[in-house]
């Protein structure tokens, strides 16, 4: 009886989800309500969690509550600590959720809401959540070993080195592109700049507070910090209202880029208690608070999606970034659907905290579903804007021109309605001079969030819109800055790990010259790409975001290769398609996108074609639009070739890791290789009940 009831209930959930998808796909002309998108997502997640993650937990891994976890076996009160699964869930979610799932879906909205929504929802259930879950379960069975170590142990040394280089590469591109997003959000915005700049002394103050004034009172300090952030928000508005001060804090894009590099260098060299840790605590709270707030806001407002299901730009002519819907929607949205970076978290702190093996299902699979929901919310916020406003904010200046009039004309040419007055009114409402060509996704998301928050809390007044807009910008920038500073520090350690083979003392992590050299080198690496993005006449996002997507999916390929190898070595080859199918899909997407980015004859899309077009233009005696001098043109050509080389490196890395893995699979299946899986043998939990 109960079984029948449950069956009926799950059938109803599945039917609701399918119905919601039909509404989304078939609606034409009339705006669809966001409720349908939410319903489609939540029903699919529920069915995926209940059935597919259960299948993986029971059939593929046979997760066993009676088996000791590393947290129990190796408990040391420091890293290995058995922890309540909901706390680990929160911890894991706070670690995986970053700006990625906010920015990607916003950019991909140029294709309309449907392609992004389908990829986020289907991709997470069959790909992203599977990857996180499989890697977490594998790492739990291997004393919490990292992805790199597992790649070396299971696939071989070549796989291990490739994974290491891939991680370094992804860090460089990731930090550069996130830096570019910050620059575009704060460029010529004294309010935003002052607010974000003030978060740095706030973090320093909290660091000092926690060290000397009230040691260990982390929550108290964080509460003070949150109050100070609100103060910073108001201070930013005050500065923007004082003409003299406002000019002082109106920074150019390149000025902001240099400031970020200096900040990254400082964060990498300064002790962590002073800057990184307090800032991290602060941003973890703000992050969870805003995500919950955004979910509630969307639920209360349930905005109509004013972006059409599909725009004409699925043919690759879109202004936000170049390329057709296949493969570029799958590259643009990485986080939220499948993000290789999560494999580092799932094999980092999290596996050392699990109290019971089966908790991996909630934390790995469930945690990623939650991040996917964040991506859906971001997509809703972006698509709640009218398409005209969306493209005015997200298209580069080469497509729009510099004035509201030229922008409105260009957007009308694409078939969307917007008036110059609308654009300047909106800019004034949110307290900015202009919102035109603020590429990178953060500002249009902030406008969407400001709209949703102010509607949810009654009435869209100008004051409310402006405060919410800058709150959203501050929140996103805080997010981005946290990745930038912690990432620079991690990158510095990774570089030192490599440099020690050149000269041993360079590997010493507390020797100032070595620390300084490695930090400067790493900052120079991402700084180069950031600066290139800032000065790129095509807007920078167009070249850097796809590179980031490709590198993230490369890491996901590494993770899925490791997962497949482990499943095969467990003697469960018949279940290998669980990770093999998403892997095949990712390889297809990645290879196609990488190939197009390098070799496409379209100068907007292909790096080499763009380099050629600039060279030809200079040879013909005139400079392309947006290029100031012959020297600048030469730099662009150099950067195009560098980008092509980076993309080629990522593609070669995919091929190497897949080939190495496939060789290992064949050897294992043919019985030629000993199944030398590194899984820790089963050890039952000591006298399960009552024992500590």
């Amino acid at each position, binding site marked *: 009886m109960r079984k029948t009831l449950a069956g009926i209930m799950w059938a109803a959930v599945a039917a609701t989800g399918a119905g919601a998808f039909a509404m989304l796909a078939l609606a034409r002309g009339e705006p669809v309500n966001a409720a349908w998108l939410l319903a489609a997502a939540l029903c699919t997640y529920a069915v995926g969690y209940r059935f597919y993650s259960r299948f993986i937990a029971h059939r593929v891994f046979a997760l066993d509550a009676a088996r000791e976890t590393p947290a129990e076996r190796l*408990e*040391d*009160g*420091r*890293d290995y*600590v058995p*922890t309540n699964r909901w*706390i680990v869930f*929160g*911890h894991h979610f*706070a*670690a*995986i*959720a*970053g*700006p*990625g799932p906010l920015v990607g879906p916003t950019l991909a909205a140029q294709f309309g809401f449907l392609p992004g929504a389908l990829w986020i929802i289907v991709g997470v259930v069959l790909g992203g959540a599977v990857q996180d879950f499989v890697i977490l379960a594998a790492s739990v069975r291997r004393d919490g070993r*990292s992805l790199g170590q597992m790649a070396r142990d299971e696939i071989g040394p070549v796989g291990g080195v490739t994974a290491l280089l891939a*991680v370094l590469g992804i*860090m460089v591109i*990731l930090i550069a592109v*996130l830096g570019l997003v910050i620059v575009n959000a704060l460029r010529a915005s004294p309010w935003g700049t002052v607010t974000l700049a003030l978060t740095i002394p706030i973090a320093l103050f909290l660091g000092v507070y926690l060290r000397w004034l009230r*040691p*260990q009172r*982390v*929550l108290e300090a*964080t509460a003070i910090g949150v109050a100070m952030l609100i103060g910073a928000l108001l201070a930013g508005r005050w500065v923007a209202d004082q003409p003299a001060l406002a000019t002082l804090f109106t920074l150019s894009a390149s000025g902001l880029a240099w400031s970020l590099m200096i900040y990254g260098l400082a964060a990498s060299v300064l002790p*962590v*208690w002073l800057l*990184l*840790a307090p800032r*991290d*605590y602060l941003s*973890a*709270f703000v992050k*969870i608070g805003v995500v919950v707030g955004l979910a509630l806001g969307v639920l209360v407002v349930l905005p109509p999606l004013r972006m059409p299901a599909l725009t004409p730009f699925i043919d690759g002519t879109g202004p936000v970034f170049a390329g057709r819907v296949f493969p570029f929607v799958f590259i643009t949205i990485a*986080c939220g659907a499948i*993000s290789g*970076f*999560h494999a*580092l*978290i799932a*094999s*980092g*702190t999290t596996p050392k905290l699990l109290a019971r093996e089966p908790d991996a299902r909630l934390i790995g699979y469930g945690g990623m579903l939650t991040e996917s929901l964040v991506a859906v919310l971001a997509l809703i916020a972006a698509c709640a804007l009218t398409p005209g406003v969306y493209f005015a904010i997200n298209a580069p200046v080469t497509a729009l021109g510099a004035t509201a009039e030229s922008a409105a004309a260009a957007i009308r040419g694409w078939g969307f309605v917007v008036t110059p007055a609308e654009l300047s009114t909106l800019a004034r409402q949110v307290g900015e001079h202009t919102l035109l060509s603020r590429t990178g996704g953060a500002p249009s998301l902030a406008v969407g969030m400001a709209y949703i928050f102010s509607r949810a809390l009654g009435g869209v007044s100008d004051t409310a819109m402006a405060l919410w807009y800058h709150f959203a910008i501050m929140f996103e920038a805080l997010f981005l800055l*946290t*990745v930038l500073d*912690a*990432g620079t*520090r*991690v990158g510095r*350690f*990774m570089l030192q790990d490599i440099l020690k083979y050149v000269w041993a003392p360079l590997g010493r*992590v507390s020797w100032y010259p070595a620390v300084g050299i490695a930090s400067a080198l790493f900052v120079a690496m991402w700084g180069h790409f950031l600066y290139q993005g800032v000065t790129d006449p095509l807007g920078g996002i167009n070249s850097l975001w796809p590179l980031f997507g490709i590198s*993230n999916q490369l890491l996901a390929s590494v993770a899925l290769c490791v997962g497949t190898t482990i499943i095969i070595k467990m003697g469960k080859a018949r279940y290998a398609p669980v990770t093999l199918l998403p892997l095949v899909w990712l390889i297809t997407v990645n290879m196609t996108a990488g190939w197009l980015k390098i070799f496409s004859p379209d100068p907007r899309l292909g790096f080499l074609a763009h380099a050629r077009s600039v060279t030809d233009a200079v040879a013909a005696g005139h400079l392309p639009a947006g290029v100031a001098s012959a020297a600048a043109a030469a730099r662009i050509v150099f950067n195009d070739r560098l980008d092509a080389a980076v993309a080629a490196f990522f593609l070669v890395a995919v091929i190497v890791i897949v080939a190495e893995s496939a060789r290992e699979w064949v050897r294992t299946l043919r019985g030629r290789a000993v199944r030398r899986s590194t899984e820790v043998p089963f050890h039952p939990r000591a006298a399960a009940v009552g024992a*500590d």
Partner: protein
Amino acid sequence: MRSRGRRMVAALRAGGSALRGVCAAVIGVPDYERYVAHLRRHHPDQAPQPRAEFAREQMRRRYDRPGSRCC
């Protein structure tokens, strides 16, 4: 009546401290008490690290490898 009030205050206090514990664990604050308790139970011969040193070292370890933060 009075004891009931006192019980409520005690319950609120316990709830508050539990909530603090959850928040601290979620954002990844090192738990010194737990470390000392573990050492007392399993390695009574070892002297625990002083609190400040423990906190500093845990923090340092958290930021020297990928795996604590994502995009």
